[in-house]
């Protein structure tokens, strides 16, 4: 589906919701919790709209954010929009303030801005909550920039689909962020929505809406938000002026010398099409593969429990494993799955 078409129907959805005024929503709540309109009325003043610079190919020059202190700290997504000295922050009451970039953690794609003001309504990051799949949530953002004047941002309602990790499969998502996310059952991740807030039906802060992202595993657009718990340490360091960009974790870094099929003695069929299935043509005599009993026509399906759907995927997966480490290889032989542990032998050695 073209971006254009996707946007059209998403716009249609958002506009419709905007037309439903809080008054029509009825008094759903009970004596115990706030009603939906009450929740929205309490959360809206904490939201801000952010205007900066546009990106390449006519990408939007706006995004969303929310206040996290009474004295004007704003949490938002780290993006090209903030790549300017003149960041405009519009508060829910229509005030237009200059935003100063305090700092950002590009690894989490999060940034903290500061505006000069006092006694602002805000979220307290320390009181953010976690939610489970199936829980109903609200998303607030200036998606598509439709909240053009002195008006509050858009509210959407939906359900949490699942909590998962963006790095669950290598190469699936083109995002520097690799941690846990909430997958949302609602069309939230649209232009300008990044930096918006995900809250519970009681108005408790849950997560920050992420940027637009395509799931390369099945070519669909993803709706997701990053839990506040993941962002909080970096945000607090930025606020305190002590932020140091953390080094990449060892697990997400390629080893300097990784495995190859040759090191294990695996001879694959010629890689002729985009997704040649990794069938074994032969094993090198006396190699780890031969000793472990792998045979011609075995189909390699898993490397350390990760699916390898093609010769290319197998080679990529092996590159991530240090050449000195043992590796579990699972093959499909007929209808039977067989797992063996292989340890590369140094070239020339026995």
């Amino acid at each position, binding site marked *: 589906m073209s971006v254009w078409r996707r946007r059209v129907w998403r716009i249609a959805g958002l506009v419709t919701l905007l037309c439903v005024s809080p008054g029509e929503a009825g008094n759903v709540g009970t004596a115990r919790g706030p009603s939906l309109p009450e929740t929205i009325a309490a959360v809206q003043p904490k939201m801000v709209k952010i205007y900066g610079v546009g990106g390449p190919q006519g990408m939007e020059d706006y995004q969303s954010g929310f206040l996290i202190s009474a004295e004007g700290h704003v949490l938002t997504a780290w993006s090209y929009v903030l790549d300017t000295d003149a960041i405009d922050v519009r508060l829910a009451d229509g005030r237009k303030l200059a935003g100063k970039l305090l700092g950002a953690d590009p690894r989490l794609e999060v940034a903290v801005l500061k505006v000069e003001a006092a006694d602002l309504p805000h979220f307290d990051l320390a009181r953010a909550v976690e939610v489970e799949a199936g829980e109903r949530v609200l998303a607030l953002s200036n998606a598509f920039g439709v909240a053009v004047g002195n008006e509050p941002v858009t509210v959407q309602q939906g359900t949490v689909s699942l909590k998962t990790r963006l790095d669950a499969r290598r190469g699936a998502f083109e995002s520097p962020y690799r941690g846990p996310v909430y997958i949302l059952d609602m069309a939230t991740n649209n232009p300008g929505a990044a930096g918006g807030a995900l809250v519970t039906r009681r108005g408790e802060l849950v997560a920050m809406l992420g940027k637009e992202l395509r799931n390369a595993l099945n070519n669909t657009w993803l709706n997701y938000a990053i839990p506040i718990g993941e962002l909080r340490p970096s945000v607090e360091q930025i606020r305190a002026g002590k932020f140091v960009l953390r080094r990449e974790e060892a697990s997400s870094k390629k080893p300097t010398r990784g495995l190859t099929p040759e090191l294990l003695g695996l001879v694959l069929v010629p890689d002729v099409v985009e997704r040649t299935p990794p069938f074994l043509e032969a094993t090198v005599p006396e190699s780890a593969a031969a000793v472990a009993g792998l045979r011609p026509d075995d189909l390699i399906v898993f490397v350390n429990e990760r699916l390898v759907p*093609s010769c290319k995927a197998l080679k990529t997966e092996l590159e991530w494993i240090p050449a000195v480490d043992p590796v579990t290889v699972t093959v499909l032989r007929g209808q039977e799955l067989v797992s063996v542990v292989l340890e590369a032998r140094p070239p020339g050695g026995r």
Partner: protein
Amino acid sequence: MGIVWRFASKLAFVGMHVEQHESRRLWESVTGSIAAAALLVSVAILNSVACAAADAGDALEVREQQAFRAAAQRVAPSVVRIETVGGMERVGDWLFGMGPTTGLVLGADGTIVSSAFNFVHRPASILVRLADGTRKAARLIATDYNRMIVLLKIDADRPLPVPEIVPLADMRVGQWTIAIGRAFEADQPNLAVGVLSATQRIWGKAIQTDAAVSPNNYGGPLVDVQGRVLGVLVPLSPTETNPIAGVEWYDSGIGFAVPAETILELLPRLQRGSDLYPGLTGIHWPLESLFTADSTIPAVRPRSPAHRAGFRAGDRITAIDGKKVETAVQVKQEIARRYAGDPIRIAALRGTERIERELELVQRIESYEHPFMGILPMRGPRQADKPAASGVKVRFVYPDGPAAKAGIQPGDILVSAGGKPLGDLAAWRLRLLEYEPGDVLPLEIERKGEKRQLALTLGPLPDVVPSAPLPPGSEPSTRQPAARPQVGLLRIDYAEQGEPAWVFVPETYDPDQPCGVVVWLPPPGEVKPETMVTLWKESCERDRLILAIPRSAGPVRWQTREARLIPALVTKIAEQYAVDANRIVVCGSQSGGTVAIAAGFRYAQLVRGVVAVDAFAEGSIPEPNPARRVDFYLAVAARSRSANLVRQTIAQMRKWHYSLIVQDLGADPRELNAEDVAVLARWIDTLDRI
């Protein structure tokens, strides 16, 4: 656009949050739960729902979300994750990721059902990960190409958990539905919440939900608020039957599931290992009038089950397997839910006579050979205030053709065939679909105000172009032409992205005389429209043709997927100029010719003719749809690099009885010259022949 309003209404529905509806739905679910509790082994979930109901102080929505979660957890043990190895990267316009996808256990012995979409890339191997983490190799036993589900089988070590099924009769539009997949996490299902939108969708084959349905849950179950299975999620399209049709509606608020009850009924057939296909009768309804037509048969294909059973055009179908039908849509709905090999009893009225026959639906109707009367009809001029046409005037009679032998002369008016009056060319073409070469067609014609009866023995379509110049295709307009749009060599923007096309509109353009359109795909690189116009100008002016020259995206060759430019370009031209739908032609040489052929296959509802020089068909050649005849003109040089492939294309197309003319270009490949273009133009001028 349907998607827009469906999606809008989804959000509006959720946003409005009408309390009464919600309470009633919850109450129904709770009372339903209590009633069912005695029958259920697992009552823990229901207890939590029931207790929540007792605690009237809690917010409804808290209990609802508990119920969603409980429903997902209840069905989760039967929801498996499917991983595939190998396979194609792209199917049609859809780029396939590497999964994973979802499946549903329906038999304790290891019987698993999924969506055909998940396997259309033809993986080398399929692996199933059960909810408990066990991995098994799976065999694809059979595919249902009508409802787009597949049956997989694994060798289970122990009985697998089978979910509870909701019968179709118990489903209520508006009830909660939860769509479950295992595309993100192996250990946790992903869920999407919505309501049941309809129960008899896609010709009665599917139920519909507004929950987000996408490759993230295709193959997974759609469950009710108690975790009982309503159906298996699949992409479906009301007009196309291929496993990826409908994926363009993913996450749009229009999602489909095949009812679990239907799948259980189909299981024995699928378990035998034979694929299931939509069942065909050979009765043809033009898509344009499908939704307004009554159940009178417009045409029956020769060699089809309906034809053999004796049904003919004009018979009005009154019942199918005892169920009364009155409209074309009802007939289609009854047939669409059945499969090839199924028996079907059709009752019809022919005048006052009642006919009832049983026939067997087939997967494929034997390929059809178009009959030929040997006539070119007069075309115009178009007259808006003219009463409905009462016949077709003969422009030209093919020498020694069937019409010539029957004594038909230019200027005669064809009034009726087989006793039925046929007003215009479209009606004649539709009626001819019932005949094949060799059949005798009783005709009534009008000559100088006098009616005559004739019998015409139909022949095959000609494989040569008439050698002599043809008489004019239309009479001059009698009225003053209205203000006409720009003529000459123009540039027009027609695609969202990409270069504008060159378009040449002849000086003779007259809005009352619709023009043919020749889309010429030039060799990639620098385009010199003036050279093309010089070659074509005379033909364009005489035969009323518009020449359109788009440009390829790449500098070296045309890509087959660029075929999609052609409908966009023709549509754009038709917005400004009167276009003759019977003479829309795509031409090209080498890679441009391959794209032209692809356009002829893919856009048969638009393209009437294809000219390809030294070009072959990429991929397999589809069986032609007789109702959308496309004429092909293939020119090939003996020493062309692709001569062998072109010959294969020709052989396959002849086998399918495509309407095909082959021109020998001589020994060495060359550009078309003025003489070739004159012959081509004459061929284009005969595309509306009958």
